């Protein structure tokens, strides 16, 4: 148990019991009120259980992508203290590169399955490389600057990425075949009126595997431990012979890979365009903030929650105000729970 955890536990003991209970009651009250509001608004639109199930499932799919993007934010923030706003750019690049490689004339005689697999792998690798290059060429030279300067640099990097993508791919939307059918049309599973696309299972599966691999990497490999050491204490890590600037490069590479994976698994369910990164990146950022920005599992939960809240909220009200939900959450969390929604349970959830 870390020192940090002990302090937290100590603080918890110090908090008067009645205050904690009061807070719990307030929480329960707010949650119940929100649920009642959702049910009332839904009843106005003749929603039954199947409709809610559909909204939650769709939200879960979007939320999983947000979670993957949020993990990229958390990884970079933990190691470097930077919020990397170029994260959305990696998502876009992953999707666009996969489409381009898959449509590449030189691979035309390959059968669709291996070609798609090769395109996905190559796109993830290429995006990872771009992530590493971004760190080397823009963050590393300015490594002694204030974090705010570095954050502004990442905003600039995103704008450059989007601008280059506009020149290369134009404003057209592209399409990547669904992973199951290897065609534009995906297989759908039905339960009453509730439908789930096969691609949704790919999104959940790939995200799950990615998280498992990350967990193994951080817990059981030398490099992963070095990364974690850096996030706990940069100076001490340095004294132990870990080079923080190398770790920063590694973190950017990892974040880029996660962004690219998110963009690629999402691509068949949507139609990638050059400017898709901005809104996805912002949603991923909100998810990371919900998780307190330092805690990977909390960021995942944050992403999934955000996706569901957003989709159910938009469903029972107006879809036109969808984005309002995520930004209300962002402001609320920043004002009232800057440690994240699950800040107190950090010791339990920390991997």
């Amino acid at each position, binding site marked *: 148990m870390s020192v940090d955890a002990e302090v937290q536990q100590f603080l918890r003991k110090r908090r008067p019991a009645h205050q904690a209970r009061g807070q719990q009651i307030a929480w329960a009250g707010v949650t119940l009120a929100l649920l009642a509001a959702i049910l009332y608004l839904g009843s106005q639109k003749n929603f039954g259980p199947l409709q809610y199930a559909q909204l939650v499932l769709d939200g879960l799919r979007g939320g999983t*992508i947000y979670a993957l993007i949020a993990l990229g934010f958390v990884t970079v923030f933990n190691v470097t203290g930077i919020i990397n706003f170029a994260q959305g750019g990696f998502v876009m690049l992953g999707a666009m590169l996969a489409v*381009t490689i898959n449509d590449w004339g030189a691979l035309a005689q390959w059968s669709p399955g291996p070609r798609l697999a090769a395109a996905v792998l190559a796109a993830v690798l290429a995006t990872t490389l771009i992530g590493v290059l971004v760190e080397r*060429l823009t963050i590393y*030279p300015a490594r002694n600057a204030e974090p705010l300067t570095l954050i502004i640099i990442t905003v600039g990097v995103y704008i450059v990425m989007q601008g280059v993508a506009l020149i290369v*791919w134009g404003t057209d*939307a592209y399409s990547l075949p669904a992973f199951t059918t290897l065609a*534009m*049309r995906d297989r759908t599973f039905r339960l009453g009126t509730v439908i789930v*696309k096969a691609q949704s299972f790919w999104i959940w599966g790939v995200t799950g595997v990615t998280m498992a691999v990350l967990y193994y990497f951080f817990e059981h490999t030398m490099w992963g431990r070095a990364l974690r050491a850096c996030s706990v204490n940069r100076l001490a890590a340095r004294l132990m012979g870990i080079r923080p600037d190398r770790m920063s490069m590694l973190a950017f590479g990892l974040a880029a890979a996660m962004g690219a994976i998110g963009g690629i698994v999402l691509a068949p369910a949507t139609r990638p365009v050059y400017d898709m990164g901005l809104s996805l990146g912002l949603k991923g950022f909100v998810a990371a903030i919900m998780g307190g920005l330092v805690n990977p599992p909390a960021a995942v939960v944050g992403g999934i929650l955000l996706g569901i809240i957003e989709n159910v909220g938009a469903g029972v009200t107006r*879809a036109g105000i969808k984005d309002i939900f995520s930004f209300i959450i962002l402001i609320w969390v920043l004002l009232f729970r800057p440690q994240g929604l699950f800040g107190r349970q950090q010791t339990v959830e920390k991997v």
Partner: protein
Amino acid sequence: MKRTRLFWLVALLAVLALALSACAQGQQGAQPAPAQEEQPAEQAAEQPAQEAAEPPAAEEAAPAQEPGATVYKIGVVVAITGPGSGLGVPERNTAAMIAAQLEEQGGVTGPDGVVHPVEVIILDSESNPDTAAAAASRLINEEQVDVLVAGTLSGNSLAMVPLATEAGVPMISMASAQSIIVDPDTGETREWIFKTPQTNEHSARWQAEYLQNLGITQVCHLYENSGYGQDTLNQATQVFGEFGIEIVYSDTFERKDTEFPQVVSVQGAGCEAVVVGAIPPGASMVTAAIKDAMPDMLVIHGHGVCNKQFIDLAPDAVEGTVLPCGKLLVAEQLPEEDPQKPVLLQYIQDYTAFTDGEPVSTFGGHAWDAMMWSVEALASLEEGMDLAARRAAVRDYIENSIQDWPGISGIFTITPEDHLGLDYKALVMTRIQDGWYTYYGPELWE
């Protein structure tokens, strides 16, 4: 230190640009468009350059058979680059094609038999209203054009409207918004401004007729969160009301949406058809989402999706979709007696020949109408008029003499009150069958 940083930044840009352009190279195999498209661009770009090199000598240097005849100038401002380039490039190609035809003919022949060379000056608005306004002002003041064919996008066109009005230059826009030709504050038709594309009101009327034919009285309306989308809802609300069709649920969606909770609401709303007001890719994605959830639901679109990309992005889902489109897409299938048919077929032949096989688009058609009005108006001028008189005469000609005029976008009858001059029959109903638009006029409805 600073210098190294700069070096790295430049290096990054270079590497990114190189890597990505390499990828783009691979893509050109799949889309044979861009390389060929550049050709007319260069031609077009050369024209103003030549002009700028010898501006006062232009009249003497005119290659006309009759020395001394005034050189007429048509100024064209289109979005060759930027987000509107998908629309602006066919417009640019069409303008360049007509310029080449005029050059071949030596120009236009006036009523007095004098042949006037016509110079077409094409400038890029970069899809940006400020650039468009600067280009228009250069064409009006420095190039002293007789007529402006200007504005791919509504916003760009609106930016040029005050310039043309103030200078007294007739301007023909190729953008959709009604506010380009009618001042929304006063409701008055703008004296100097005309436009060629059909409006959302025309689309809505066809949709209403089709829905009425099927006996449908309750529809849902989903529209893209954009000026175009909002206008489709406004027009649909008004026109559907006349037909006794009620919009029981309407909501917006974003161009890049991945989830469509709107579809769940459609299920609960109990409508018999969904009318969509959007352009691709959003239009394709929302159709796919509706068809996934409700395979039997009737989906009707507007004329914003009359292009190949709409089908390409969701070929299975959009199959069977019914929508009004300009006649250009279904020219071969039109009845023989349609007065537009020969015009359309000729344009398709000329355009594909000029661009080495580029497919025609309705946007190029809007440019053809605008260019041909200008050419016809210029041909009506007597020799010896000064610039202001010529501009006024061109305006008067378009307003009074474009009557029952078969063009690409419809049969135009311009009046002082109506500077578009089309009714809803300018569009035809089509249905997407086997991955392409098929003519689906009322005589084919069951």
